């Protein structure tokens, strides 16, 4: 039994929950225990109110018209860009490109960087633990370029096999990896990996979908060339993300999409591109949701990313201890909370993860089950699917307790 009355030292969970309207609802007559944060996070009323305010009071297209509404919308949109810059500590605001999400950012990176910098028989390196969105775009771009596609092995603890990494980085042109695994929860040392790749002359693209929501990110210190993440996993709206790129690199590659707002001058035979970052933002942007992302960043900043990280590490440590008490539960990924995120994948012996998730759902506990868009990693782990409970700032020890009690129910049903 979990020690009751445990309270997080880093975050006032009870206070935070008041900001999230959805956490008041019931699921199957039980309190909603939302542990599917690695898939998407819930939204605080501050973010929801920002969207309502935009559509109610200053909805307008940006960068074009000169009327008052357009001025206000443009100002709010560009303010969100500055907030996003500060959030990842990019050195310049024009290095922040708004996308539809991590997937679009990584597709853009793969398509543009490979066509510019990768030639036949060069190599592109990814890892075995990548989400499909940081795997398939590179695999397909490599095919188009006639380049080699190399996959760095994952060791038994859930980290990269460094001897394999060093071998594969030799002569590589691009190294793409996720800073935090959506399945294993492993937090990689992105700075060290970037340094090794740069020593080999490779460009570095980091998938930050699972790291940016949960820990401080400093792209200058990391020194990566590109970094992609999504708004919806960090309290913001869906449909928005950010691709950071070093200015010189962004200046060197052509636009990904053509259309309005990304041009400077269009003539019958040629076109000049707009300045960064608008060169990469063709068409009307997702204005409301970008401004909503800015509001989510304000919220996270107020809580403090280091506090969020400390809180999740505490909960993760307790969760690993509790899960270890079940002899028939196998937990994947690092066993030390400090080395990992609070996205915890596991399996219950002889029970399919979908069945685990369905029975937990009856108890109001929402977790993910499936292959988590990481089939290559599933193959490496020798499983077809796992269950995954992933925690965030509004999850407390009571949520962990509900998960553990739910797992006992799962075993009862299948005994």
């Amino acid at each position, binding site marked *: 039994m979990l020690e009751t009355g445990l309270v997080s030292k880093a975050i006032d969970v009870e206070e935070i929950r008041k900001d999230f309207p959805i956490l008041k609802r019931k699921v199957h007559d039980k309190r909603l225990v939302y542990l599917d944060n690695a898939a998407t996070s819930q939204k605080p009323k501050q973010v929801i109110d920002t969207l309502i305010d935009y559509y109610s009071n200053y909805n307008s297209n940006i960068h074009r018209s000169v009327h008052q509404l357009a001025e206000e919308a443009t100002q709010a949109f560009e303010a969100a860009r500055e907030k996003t810059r500060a959030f990842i500590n990019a050195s310049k605001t024009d290095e922040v490109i708004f996308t539809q999400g991590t997937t679009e950012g990584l597709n853009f990176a793969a398509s543009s960087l490979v066509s510019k910098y990768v030639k036949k028989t060069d190599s592109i390196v990814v890892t075995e633990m990548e989400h499909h969105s940081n795997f398939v775009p590179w695999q397909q771009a490599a095919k188009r370029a006639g380049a080699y596609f190399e996959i760095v092995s994952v060791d038994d603890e859930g980290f990269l096999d460094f001897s394999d990494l060093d071998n594969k980085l030799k002569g590589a042109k691009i190294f793409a990896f996720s800073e935090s695994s959506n399945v294993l929860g492993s937090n990689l040392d992105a700075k060290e990996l970037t340094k090794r790749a740069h020593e080999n002359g490779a460009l570095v693209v980091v998938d930050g979908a699972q790291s940016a929501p949960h820990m401080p990110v400093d792209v200058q210190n990391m020194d990566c060339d590109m970094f992609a993440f999504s708004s919806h996993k960090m309290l913001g709206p869906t449909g928005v993300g950010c691709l950071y790129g070093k200015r010189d690199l962004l200046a060197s590659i052509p636009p990904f999409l053509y259309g309005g707002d990304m041009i400077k001058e269009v003539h019958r035979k040629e076109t000049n591109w707009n300045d960064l970052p608008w060169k990469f933002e063709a068409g009307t942007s997702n204005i409301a949701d970008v401004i909503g992302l800015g509001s989510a960043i304000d919220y996270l900043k107020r809580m403090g990313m280091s506090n969020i990280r400390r809180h999740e590490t505490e909960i993760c440590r307790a969760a690993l201890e509790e899960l270890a008490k079940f002899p028939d539960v196998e937990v994947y990924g690092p066993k030390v909370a400090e080395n990992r995120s609070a996205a915890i994948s596991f399996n219950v012996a002889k029970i*399919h993860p979908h*069945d685990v998730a*369905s029975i937990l759902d009856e108890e109001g506990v929402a977790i993910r089950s*499936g292959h988590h868009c990481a089939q290559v990693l*599933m193959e490496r782990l020798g499983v077809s699917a796992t269950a995954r409970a992933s925690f965030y700032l509004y999850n407390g020890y009571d949520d962990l307790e509900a998960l553990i009690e739910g797992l006992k129910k799962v075993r009862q049903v299948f005994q």
Partner: protein
Amino acid sequence: MSADIYKEIILDYYKNPRNKGTLESPDVSVRDSNPLCGDVIEMQMKFEGDKLREIKFNGDGCAISQASASILTEMVSGKTIEEARSLDKSALLENLGSPNLGPVRIKCALLSLKVMKMGIYQHLGGSDATPSPEDLASSR
């Protein structure tokens, strides 16, 4: 929906699957998976005249997908090819004891029906026959 999607019948067929295994020299062998969940169902069939004489399945996945496959093989074994081809999803869901599965889990339950119909169509139309979208619609 309540805990009761795990009806006795699903747990029973999951733990003690009927018609699980392989056939010797089957007339058709078909396999499909559920891309979202990774459930896999393989089926092998032997025909005799207008009858589906024997059917076996193999697979990997959740209790609902596997129990459904097992129950389905019992439903169509020995029936005419036309009866198997026109079997409606509601009959299978009824037999599973879960007529009201949600939109996600229903895919687990109906994967077996899709695979079975693929096998029937393969038999009817030669090796590369595929079911028409309309026909598969009844199994989605």
